């Protein structure tokens, strides 16, 4: 019997969690599990941005706002309000959704480059607030004193192994949910708007509503990415909300490929690996990164997974690659 696509995705997700759970047994080095944790935060973040960029055609330069907001709202709730992890998680999601609704409603009124720069402006506004509001945020030092991680439901995130598993599960569940959203009627409507917003309007679609919904969904998952990072570093830093974070997410999407759902995940892995490897050999990290991005921009326009997917299609069905008539 043919399985439904959702069941197939679910099985892949379960298998992925199983593999990730076994990974530390095969590679016990702490560097490996730390890599996966950082990857989980950045992959969720980059994939959430790709909902806007790849599926919605809305190039946000300020998506780091939600990464920073998720990290700070979660960390502050844990540290200052003393809430439990699930409550802080849920509240951070709600805060991100609320802020995304307000900022989205303003930004999506603008198109293209104006949209991009307005999102960037809002991000820098948050960054300035974090720097200036020293009494709450710790200013440019970030939150000091570490995050308390009281156990919940028998899960103790102070334990590195449990933190690792927690991040893996959040990563896979977040990707599964986002995958489901892009394959939903909403996801297809979003792509219609990307292809031809005017025509979408003449099909009775209120374009701004769909774009706002996309902005909020992306903001929520972007926040979950930041939240995982704050759990990992046991703090939150103003850098999380700096514009370079948004830039890195755009690089990840370009490196992995925006046309493939898991492209940003692959891109996040590439960027992290580059970061870890290159800094070991040279201090000129930016130079190497620049060259890599140049290679992708000139030669691998569709990113690593996009190019791989093209090759796969060509190999599987040579006839399908024939140009259509007319």
């Amino acid at each position, binding site marked *: 019997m043919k399985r*439904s*696509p*959702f069941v197939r995705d679910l099985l892949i997700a379960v298998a992925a969690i199983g593999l990730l759970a076994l990974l530390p047994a095969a590679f016990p080095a702490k560097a490996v599990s730390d890599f996966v944790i950082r990857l989980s935060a950045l992959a969720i973040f980059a994939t959430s941005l790709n909902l806007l960029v790849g599926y919605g055609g809305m190039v946000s330069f300020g998506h780091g706002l939600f990464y920073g907001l998720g990290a700070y709202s979660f960390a502050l709730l844990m540290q200052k309000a003393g809430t439990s992890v699930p409550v802080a998680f849920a509240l951070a999601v709600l805060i991100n959704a609320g802020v995304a609704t307000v900022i989205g409603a303003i930004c999506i009124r603008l198109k293209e480059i104006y949209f991009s720069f307005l999102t960037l402006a809002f991000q820098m506004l948050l960054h300035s607030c974090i720097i200036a509001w020293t009494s709450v945020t710790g200013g440019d030092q970030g939150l000091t004193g570490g995050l308390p991680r009281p156990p919940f439901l028998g899960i103790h995130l102070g334990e590195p192994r449990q933190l690792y598993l927690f991040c893996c599960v959040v990563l896979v569940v977040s990707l599964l949910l986002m995958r*489901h*959203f892009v*394959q*939903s*009627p*909403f*996801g*297809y*409507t979003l*792509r*219609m708007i*990307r*292809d*031809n917003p*005017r*025509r*979408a*309007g*003449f*099909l*009775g*679609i*209120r374009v701004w*509503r*769909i774009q706002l*919904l996309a902005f909020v*969904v992306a903001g929520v998952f972007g926040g979950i990415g930041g939240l995982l990072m704050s759990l990992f570093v046991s703090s939150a830093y103003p850098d999380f909300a700096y514009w370079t974070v948004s830039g890195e997410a755009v690089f990840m999407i370009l490196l992995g490929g925006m046309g493939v759902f898991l492209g940003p995940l692959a891109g996040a892995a590439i960027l992290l690996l580059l970061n870890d490897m290159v800094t070991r050999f040279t201090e000129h990290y930016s130079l190497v990164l620049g060259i890599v991005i140049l290679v992708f921009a000139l030669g691998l326009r569709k990113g690593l997974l996009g190019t791989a997917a093209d090759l796969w299609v060509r190999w599987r069905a040579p006839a399908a690659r024939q*140009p*259509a*008539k*007319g």
Partner: protein
Amino acid sequence: MLTVENLRKSFGGVSAMNGVSLAFAEGSLTAVIGPNGAGKTTFFNLITGAFRPDSGRVLLGGDDIAGLSAPEIVKRGIGRAFQIASIFPSFTVRDAIRAAVNAHQGRHARLLQRFPIAEAESRADEVMELVGLGSRAGVASGNLSHGDQKLLDIALALALEPRVLLLDEPTAGMGPEERWQMIETVHQLWERKKMTLIFIEHDMDIVFKYAQTIRVLSYGTVLAEGTPDEVRRHPKVIEAYLGAHFETGVHAGTQRP
């Protein structure tokens, strides 16, 4: 019944629509003709909410829809296709029509279901069959031939089950043979779906063969209206548009192959 009353619109001081009043009977097949710049597409844009009229009313079944947004007007039952096919290039033909059906059925913002939705399938199949795109269902819209893209554009509008369908030059950019095929498809649609169909057309052979009634626009005003015979003999139309030679039948139109 679609009625426009004293419709006016100007762009930066240039008057594009200068007090047009017209009525289109329920279930009629009407051609809108006129020289370039006569205001034909502007007329469609004003009815469908692409532009807001400066003044005047657009009445659909008694309700004034002038000034409503395009999505709101679509919901009232006016669909349109464009002079340059307006489609979704990354979508296959079937997915594009499914997505349009979702929009019509109000299911296009659902996050938790998987696309395609079972309830939309029969309607999507019917629409593809209506325009004869069934054999190209799996082809990416952007790879379709020009004529098929025009058909898909019409199919997207049909997915909305419109009471009134506006087609802006359905045969634009086609060879003679393709033109007759296209207009034949459009005519069959009209006969089967019993909707009010208004089309803009430059090919006079097609206009006079297929239209029940004709409206002639010129410089944003109504030059003439009536049956094909009445319009053909209208002195103002001959003078301004058709030219004297048309009456005699010696003209460079496209004869049916």
